[in-house]
């Protein structure tokens, strides 16, 4: 049956829809996800139980460095494109449900805990913009104006409980926390002098600690958001021990946090190491030599393993750390130019994108066997709807 026929029949009987190509039967969204095909401006919709590509949604613009958040019901993907577009994609109908050009150059976004506000973080013009997730109407525009007329590029945007969002100002060495509970009058708390050049940040799974990585110095800036008056503490100061840093060909990403048990695993900048920090004392408790400059350091949802990928030229490898021993237990080579990894909701499998092989591999995290592969044009970010239920994703 052709799709056109399906549409014509929609009014007649919803039962018929089940048999129509491209129109799925009534289904949940818990096993859906998306893969960004960065060079073609396409979003692939996938089913993580069946390990199949369901559909491709085209016309999303410049998706280099695209990132995605999900509506609370897991039905809609909000895609933040490099070109400043915010596109709302319906994972059930495989259609674009809304789209707004909201900036000149964007780097990602976040969604509020109640799912009502979608917020974009922008490089040009530097700042954040909040949108109604139902209509994509602009709700608030907060330029990151740190000096008169000077806007900073914004990195490390995360959602916090309530209608609050924390983010870092790359050009201003600051962390700002904006409270949008009164949409017309957002209140922004500004924490200056956090350390040089914050490049990305994460919030811990309990929403308590916001941690910004610093490019300009050895160390990270941490804010305890449960304190009455949040202030910045330096953690892991001087982790490079004064040694000359190695070239950083790609900025690490902190967003896919790796907090496993009471330890956090963080990429070192300019060092081929993963830093291990105790989240009670915030002291370094170890460092693990790895195969290159780490980009993503991600904990399997149960925290038993931490998976690490790398920047060029070491990005054909992925390494797995066993968190009970702090040792690397496996080095995988899933393909050329591994850009991203995403765990299935409970972590029995991980999906890995290999950009230059145009391949996404599904790997069993216990046996490390490859369970499936699929062809996607220059795949980059992989995002599953289970993110909808997690703080900071």
């Amino acid at each position, binding site marked *: 049956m052709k799709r056109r026929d399906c549409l014509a029949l929609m009014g007649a009987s919803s039962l018929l829809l089940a048999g129509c190509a491209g129109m799925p039967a009534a289904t949940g969204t818990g096993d859906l996800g998306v893969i960004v095909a*960065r*060079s073609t401006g396409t979003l692939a919709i996938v089913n993580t139980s069946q390990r199949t590509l369901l559909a491709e949604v085209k016309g999303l613009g*410049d*998706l*280099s*460095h695209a990132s995605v958040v999900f509506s609370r019901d897991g039905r809609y993907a909000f895609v933040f494109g*490099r*070109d400043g577009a915010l596109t709302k994609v319906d994972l059930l109908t495989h259609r674009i449900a809304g789209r707004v050009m909201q900036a000149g*150059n964007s*780097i990602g976004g976040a969604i509020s805990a109640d799912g009502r506000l979608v917020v974009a973080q922008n*490089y*040009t013009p530097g700042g954040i913009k909040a949108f109604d997730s139902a209509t994509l109407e602009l709700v608030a525009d907060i330029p990151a104006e740190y000096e008169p007329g000077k806007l900073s*590029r914004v*990195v490390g945007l995360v959602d916090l409980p309530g209608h609050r969002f924390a983010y870092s100002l*790359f*050009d201003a060495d600051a962390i700002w926390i904006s409270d949008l509970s009164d949409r017309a009058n957002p209140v922004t708390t500004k924490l200056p002098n956090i350390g040089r*050049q914050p*490049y990305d940040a994460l919030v811990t799974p309990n929403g308590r600690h916001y941690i910004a990585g610093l*490019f*300009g110095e050895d160390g990270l800036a941490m804010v305890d958001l449960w304190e009455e008056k949040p202030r910045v503490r330096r953690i892991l100061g001087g982790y490079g021990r004064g040694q000359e840093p190695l*070239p*950083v*060909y*790609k*900025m690490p990403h902190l967003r896919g946090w790796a907090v496993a048990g009471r330890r956090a695993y963080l990429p070192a900048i300019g060092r081929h190491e993963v830093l291990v920090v105790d989240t009670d004392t915030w002291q370094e408790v170890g460092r693990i030599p790895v195969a290159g400059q780490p980009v993503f350091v991600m904990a399997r949802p149960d925290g038993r393993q931490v998976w690490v990928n790398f920047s*060029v*030229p070491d990005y054909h490898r992925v390494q797995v750390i066993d968190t009970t021993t702090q040792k690397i237990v496996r080095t995988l080579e899933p393909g050329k*130019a591994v850009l991203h990894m995403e765990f299935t909701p409970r972590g029995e499998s991980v999906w890995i994108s290999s*950009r*230059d092989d*145009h391949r996404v591999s599904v790997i069993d995290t216990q046996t490390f066997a490859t369970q499936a592969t699929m*062809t996607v044009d*220059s795949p980059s970010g992989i995002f599953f709807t289970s993110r909808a239920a997690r703080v900071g994703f």
Partner: protein
Amino acid sequence: MNPLTHIKDMRNHCGEHLHMSAAHCAPPLFTMEKLHAPPLPPGPPMHALRRWGAALFLGLASAGALAQQGAPDAARQKELVRMVRQDCGSCHGLYLTGGLGPALTREALADKPLDSMAATIYGGRPGTPMAPWKAMLSEADALWIAQQLMAGFPEPQKDPR
């Protein structure tokens, strides 16, 4: 200008200003020679290579190492195009419209000196996230990339699957 002074000044002052164009602060790659080769017109790679070959030879007659290395061949050029789009693209954007790094479009680079561009690609810019790429590029590669950027960077070729 004494090149050492230039480098010191750059470390002291330029590092804090990420928005500054790459060309403003970069140390000269070839301190003894200024490169005055004109930007390449858009065109097929081999055509471009021949034109550039002459300019390269004349312009770099005393930059011994580079002249010996010569410009990258067609296969290498293809690798470089992909590398710039994809790997440089992580900071500068797949379409080179900028991101954490500045835009590298022809328009954005219109008033930038070629030699500084090549030097920045090869040696990086201390104090900024711009890494030195010399572990992966020869000086000739860096110069070729700078030329292409200033002329409007070639579109990526579709990889065979």
